Structure formats: structure tokens, C-alpha cells
């Protein structure tokens, strides 16, 4: 029998595992706890980015306002985009990857639990690094896509862009480390019988996203390294004035990353909604294989559409035609998904829970964003629309109407699995309707202000151009978001403490994560399940139900079951700290580079040479 070197822990159903207290969170390697850390941190940054957006909208509420300076306005919109993309939506998706992937494929943890902790700590420290400057009004100020040569030292001499370049490099390390981990987990830790075509759709979309991350992030890493070298060591990559550099180099490298990034942001939400809609329609997902293939097709085509962000630079008719066509093509697999979700709901016995409402919200609102996307897939149309509020309207329908609606749906759906308690449905529905009203009131008028020629990134405007009403509407809508968020936060924290006890499968869902107690024990599955179908709880065979029966038992410790758990360790945190300290050295004091490198290398060796878990005997 396997034994553990640790004292037998006492299982408490309310906290995560046997540990509590700050140290247990700093040293955890449990994918569920890391997922919760991601969730809280990303929700914090989501609200931080939201406050930035509200200041932006307050400034634009009426013509010729001077609530903030033009310079600070630049910092606000840059950090709003950077925060929402890299610190809110991606980590919110990562929270679900962490919590759900091992549960959905029947695994005890991710493939590399300590690397998983490392990813989180790099994200946290990198997020703090890139966010702190705005409190001192020295935040990055050249837009979230940081176009070089504008971002080179000649045009952006301050430390603002230094924070942006280094911050994104740090966050890239986190994303890549996590991507290697999840990719390996999905390929290699699937339970017996969990074939690729039986994987839950969320895990499938997560799998595709990891492939995109692995292939897209190195490209922006190199673009950022060039920029870093230009700014710190005087190289010429973006030196268009005296060295003859190509002004489009950055744009190409950035968008080769940037467009797959769009799918990195939205596919996890597609995955979540593909879990939500079947559950509350009491029907298996319609056209499962087609959903898989369309996801793969989106990812493949996603690497061939990047220059549609660059129609205005004059690439010539052949390039414009090619990228216009590929962009229109990508609407086909995306449209297939929309129709499949609708067909999933068709003739189902639908329960309008909050999660379901958010899921339906995604289908409706993302479609609006998708349709406006096809409009500017056509280069001549795009030349009218590019850099106007029409584009702002488009990508907010995609990212808020798509990603955020899906993520909220996921939170309401999985909250009982994470905490063991249900969220309040009445408050949830208030949150949903406030969000839908706020979202449409804010972003729909932007279609009109954009069509009337209002450019992006201007900090104020003159009256009498026909923009006043639409801006006032957008600002009014934006002021509803904080109310919606307050309802959500209140509901979240009160339900966490006093919500109704959920039980293992409160929604009657069909996939593996619902066979185990809520919250799951630290080992997830007492017995690694054997899987015979896509919905083991709906259409499984005897063996599925037998596994589910064993796994739903509560109160067993790892020692009772002879399961070896990994040691908790602080070392991944120290490596992350060393890495970020090293990067800080570039801006603050060069001595920090040595200190950080020493800490990183020492902790890394200490980590790699210590065993993951007690030896089996």
C-alpha cells in the first residue's frame, strides 16, 4: 500500500483540503486552489479595469470636458485594454482551466502542479508590476497594441512604455508555462475511456486555446524583445528614421499574435456556454463533432487573418483581398457554433437559471459583434470604420458580449462546485438584466457615433458633430455596470458563506465534474473513473454509475484511500518573485537584476531537485 509521509489530514467540506491560513495559499499546488486564486485576482483586475473604463466614459459623457488630462486619458485607455485582456479575461479563463480541466477529464491534478503554481504567481506579480504605474500617473500610454515606432524611446521617452514592455514579457511567461501544463494535462491525464471525442466541450476549447497560446505567444515575445532592445540597448528594429527600419514590422508581429489572441479570449467562453446550454436544456450538445471541428478551424484560420487589423496601412489589393477573404471565411465555423447552440436549446426543456440567461446572452450578443466583424472584413468598408467607435462597439460586443457573458455564466454554473453552495438566483437575475441593459446602452450607441466619424482614443470632442447624444447614452450605460457588479459581488460573498448547500450535482448536469462532492476533495476522484460516453451521468453504462457512486462519497482523506498527494511548496512563488525582480532591475536599479537572477536560479534548482510528492512504497 502507498503511504504518505505527512500526518493524516482531517477533511473538512467547507475549506479546501485540510489546510487554511495564508501560508497554505502561498504554498499550494492544488489546481482547485490555484484556480480560486486566479478567480479572485482576475475579478479584482476586472473591477480595476472597469474603474478605468468608467473614468473614460465620464470624461466622454459630454463635449469639451476636462475631468482628466489628455495625457492621463491616454494612460487610462491603454491600461483599460491591457488590464481587461491580459489581467482579467485571460486569467478568468485560466481560473476555469485550472479548476475544471482535471475534473472534466477525470484526473487528480494537472500534469505539473508546481509549474501551475508558478504560472499563477508570475501572473500576480506581473499584474501588480504593470498596474502600479497608473497610481502614479506614469502608466503605459500608447494603446494596448503599443505600435512601434511610436513606442520607441524617440517618441515615448518616459518609463511608461518600459512598464508595458516588461510587464507583457512577464505575463507571457505565465501564459506559456500554463499552456504547456494544460496541453500536457489534456493529452496525457485523461481517465480510461475518456477519448478525445468524449471530452467535454469546455476541455476541447481549452485544448485549442493552449495550442494557440503555445504558437502565438512566442511571436509577441520576440516583438517585445525587439522593442525592449530598441529602448534599452539602442538597436534599430523599429528605428525608421535613421536606420531604415520597416514601420510595419511591429504591426505584423503584433497582429500575428494579436488575432489568435482574440480566439484565446473567446474560445474558453464558448466552451463554458457549451456546458451551460446542454445542462439547462436537458439535451446533449447538438452536433458535438462539428463543434470540435469548427473550433479547430477557427484556430487554424485565426493565424491567417492578422492583417485585417492593417487594411489602413496600404498593403495593396492582393494582400487586402486575401485577408478580407480569410476573415469572412472564419465567420463560417463561428456561425456554425451559433447555430449549434440554438439547435441545442431547440425543443429542450429549458430552465431559465442565471447561468442559462448568461449563456443565451452570449449567443445573442456575440452574434451582434460577429456581424459587425464581417462588415469590416471588407477592406473598403473597413477604411471607413477603422479607428472609429464602430470598431470599439464591435470588439466590446465580442469581448463583453462573448467572453464576459460566457465567463459570468460559467461562474454561476460552477459556483456550487467550487464552494459547495448555490448562488442566489434572484440576485443573479438582477445582475444579468442590469448587465444586459448596461452593455447594450453603453456599446450599441458606439456603432452610431463611430459611423458618424468619432475616432477612437480622442479624449474630448467639440459639440455639434452629432456625437453628443450617443456619447451621453454610452456614459449612462457605463454607470450601470458598477451597480450590476455590486449586486454580483454581494451575491458572491454572501452565497459563499450562507448559500444553499449544493450537493454534488445541483443542476443535473452530465459530465464527470458533477460526480464528485462539492467542493471536491483535494484528490478529486477517490477512484479514477472509467468513461464510456460524453455525458457519463446522462447516458453512461453501469461502470460510469459505479464510478460516480464511489466518487460522490464525502469525508474520505487521501490517507484513507491510499492516495499520494504532492507536497505543498513555496518554491514556485520564489522563482516567480526572482523572475519579476530581475525584470524590475531594468527599470529601477541594475543591482536587482543580479538579486532576482540569484533568487530565481537558486529556487529553481531547489524546486527541480526536490521530489513532487512522497515516494510510493
Amino acid at each position: 500500500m502507498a503511504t504518505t509521509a505527512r500526518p493524516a489530514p482531517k477533511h473538512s467540506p467547507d475549506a479546501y483540503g485540510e489546510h487554511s491560513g495564508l501560508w497554505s495559499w502561498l504554498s499550494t499546488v492544488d489546481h482547485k486552489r490555484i484556480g480560486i486564486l486566479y478567480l479572485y485576482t482576475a475579478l479584482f483586475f476586472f473591477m480595476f479595469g472597469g474603474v478605468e473604463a468608467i473614468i473614460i466614459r465620464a470624461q466622454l459623457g459630454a463635449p469639451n470636458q476636462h475631468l482628466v488630462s489628455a495625457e492621463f486619458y491616454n494612460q487610462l485607455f491603454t491600461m483599460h485594454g491591457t488590464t481587461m485582456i491580459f489581467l482579467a479575461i485571460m486569467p478568468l479563463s485560466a481560473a476555469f482551466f485550472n479548476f475544471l480541466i482535471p475534473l472534466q477529464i477525470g484526473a487528480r491534478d494537472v500534469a505539473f502542479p508546481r509549474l501551475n503554481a508558478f504560472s499563477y504567481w508570475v501572473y500576480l506579480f506581473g499584474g501588480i508590476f504593470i498596474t502600479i504605474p497608473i497610481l502614479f500617473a506614469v502608466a503605459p500610454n500608447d494603446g494596448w497594441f503599443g505600435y512601434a515606432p511610436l513606442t520607441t524611446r524617440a517618441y515615448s521617452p518616459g518609463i511608461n512604455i518600459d512598464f508595458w514592455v516588461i510587464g507583457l514579457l512577464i505575463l507571457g511567461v505565465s501564459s506559456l508555462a500554463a499552456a504547456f501544463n494544460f496541453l500536457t494535462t489534456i493529452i496525457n491525464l485523461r481517465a480510461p475511456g475518456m477519448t478525445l471525442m468524449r471530452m467535454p466541450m469546455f476541455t476541447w476549447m481549452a485544448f485549442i486555446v493552449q495550442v494557440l497560446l503555445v504558437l502565438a505567444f512566442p511571436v509577441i515575445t520576440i516583438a517585445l524583445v525587439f522593442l525592449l532592445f530598441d529602448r534599452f540597448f539602442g538597436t534599430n528594429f523599429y528605428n525608421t528614421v535613421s536606420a531604415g527600419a520597416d514601420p510595419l514590422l511591429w504591426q505584423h508581429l503584433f497582429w500575428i499574435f494579436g488575432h489568435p489572441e482574440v480566439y484565446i479570449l473567446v474560445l474558453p467562453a464558448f466552451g463554458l456556454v457549451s456546458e451551460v446550454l446542454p445542462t439547462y436544456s436537458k439535451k446533449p450538445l447538438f452536433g458535438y463533432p462539428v463543434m470540435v471541428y469548427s473550433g479547430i478551424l477557427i484556430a487554424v484560420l485565426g493565424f491567417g487573418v492578422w492583417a485585417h487589423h492593417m487594411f489602413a496601412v496600404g498593403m495593396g489589393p492582393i494582400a487586402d483581398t486575401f485577408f478580407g477573404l480569410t476573415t469572412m471565411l472564419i465567420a463560417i465555423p463561428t456561425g456554425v457554433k451559433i447555430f449549434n447552440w440554438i439547435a441545442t436549446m431547440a425543443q429542450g426543456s429549458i430552465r431559465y437559471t442565471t447561468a442559462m440567461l448568461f449563456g443565451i446572452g452570449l449567443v445573442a450578443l456575440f452574434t451582434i459583434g460577429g456581424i459587425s466583424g464581417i462588415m469590416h472584413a471588407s477592406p473598403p468598408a473597413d477604411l471607413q470604420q477603422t479607428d472609429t467607435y464602430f470598431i470599439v462597439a464591435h470588439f466590446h460586443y465580442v469581448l463583453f458580449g462573448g467572453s464576459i457573458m460566457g465567463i459570468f455564466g460559467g461562474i454561476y454554473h460552477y459556483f456550487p462546485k467550487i464552494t459547495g453552495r448555490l448562488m442566489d438566483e434572484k440576485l443573479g437575475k438582477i445582475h444579468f438584466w442590469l448587465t444586459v441593459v448596461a452593455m447594450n446602452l453603453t456599446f450599441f450607441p458606439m456603432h452610431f457615433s463611430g459611423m458618424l466619424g468619432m475616432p477612437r482614443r480622442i479624449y474630448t470632442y467639440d459639440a455639434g458633430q452629432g456625437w453628443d447624444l450617443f456619447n451621453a447614452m454610452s456614459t449612462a450605460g457605463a454607470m450601470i455596470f458598477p451597480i450590476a457588479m455590486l449586486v454580483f459581488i454581494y451575491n458572491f460573498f454572501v452565497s459563499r458563506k450562507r448559500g444553499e448547500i449544493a450537493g454534488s450535482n445541483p443542476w443535473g448536469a452530465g459530465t464527470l465534474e458533477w460526480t464528485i462532492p462539492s467542493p471536491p476533495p483535494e484528490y478529486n476522484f477517490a477512484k479514477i473513473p472509467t468513461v464510456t460516453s460524453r455525458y457519463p451521468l446522462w447516458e453512461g453504462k453501469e461502470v460510469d454509475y459505479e464510478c460516480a457512486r464511489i466518487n460522490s462519497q464525502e469525508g474520505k482523506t487521501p490517507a484513507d484511500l491510499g492516495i499520494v498527494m504532492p507536497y505543498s511548496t513555496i518554491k514556485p512563488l520564489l522563482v516567480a518573485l526572482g523572475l519579476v525582480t530581475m525584470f524590475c532591475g531594468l527599470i529601477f536599479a541594475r543591482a536587482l537584476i543580479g538579486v532576482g537572477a540569484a533568487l530565481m536560479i537558486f529556487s529553481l534548482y531547489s524546486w527541480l531537485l526536490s521530489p513532487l510528492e512522497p515516494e510510493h512504497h
Partner: protein
Amino acid sequence: MSASATPVSAPAPHHYTALGIDSRKIAIWAFIGSECMLFVSLISTYLIYKGRSIVGPFPHETWTDPATGRVLKPILNIPVTSASTFVLLMSSLFMVLALAAVQNKEKPKQTRGERILGNSKLWLWMTAMAGTTFLGFQAFEFTSFVHEGLTIRTNLFGSSFFTLTGFHGAHVTAGVLWLVTLLAIDYRRGLGSRDSLLVDIAALYWHFVDVIWIVIFTLVYLIK
């Protein structure tokens, strides 16, 4: 880490894997896939900027400085780099022998030849030394370029050349450190066939870095 030791009667081992191979091997392939895109970006930038530098020195052409009248010869030293490329290629052979030596550690060895081939320390040393020699060549190349007036700031060629080859050199450096770490383990407790995965993934990385150099050598040095 030692799932193989779990008796049959025990519950499903923690390290059950769907493909039956160690997760680290899959992760290193994913990592290599990512590294491919890293070098594709670096190499593409080099090629895009090829021939677009305004001032010399140039890689394959002579350049006369209009201000001073000084004539600068083509800067790339192909014979020397061919030698360093040969050394790096040989290091891959040594790496293969090192892995074979670790995998066959427990097999009895009769002849002197078998003992030499089975000496994992020897082949790890040879690989690390070949890598270090390559880095020495690169240090020599970089210093001589700087003496001839090409720095990372001189022109587009200098920026993209030093960044590309420097990134590759950094990868070789990391590989040498990895090999030295394996050597330290070998000296401390001896690497046996149970450790072959550790050497296997290091070898995959090493061969990858080697292959990337063949691409760089061809595109940067050989093709004018």
C-alpha cells in the same frame, strides 16, 4: 516519479497517463513547438531586413564608408563558423551516445570499447564541452565583429544578426547548464536507466537547438 513501483493491488496510481508516456516528454515537445515560433519570428525579421541596412558593414558585400573612404570587407567569416557548426553537429552525436550510455547503464560490459561507449559521464562531458566550444567561437565572432565596426546598434543587419545568433547562443548556454546539472547528478548518485527520461528530454532540447543552428547557418551564412 516512481509510479512503476506501485503494486498491482494499490488504487490507480497518481501517475496514470492516457498515452502511457511520461508527461514531461509531451511537455518538452510542446515547448519545442513554442520555441519554433520564437525562432521563426527572429529568422523572419533577419530575412526581412536582409539587404536593407543603410550603412555597413554588410554580411556578404564590401562597403565603402562615404565619409571616411574606409573600405569594409564582408564581415561574415564562413570558414570559422563552418568549424563551429561542425563542433555543434558533433555535440549532437555525443548527446546520442550519452543517452545510450545512460539507457544501457545496467548492461554488463566486457570490452574496452563497450566500457567507453557506456561511460555516461564521458559523453555528457563531451557534449557540454562541444557546446562550450561553440559558445567560445561565438564570443570570438562577436568580438571580432565589434572590432571591425559592427555592433548591435550599427545597422539593421547588426541588430537582427546579434539578436538572432545571441538568442541561439543563450539557448546553447542554457543547454550547457542543463548538461552540467545532469553531470552533477551523475557524479553524486550515478545516472541509471531509470533516469533515462531526464537525459532524453535534455537531448531533445539539445538536438532542437542544434537543428535551429543548421537553419541559421544556412540562411545567414551560406545563402548570399
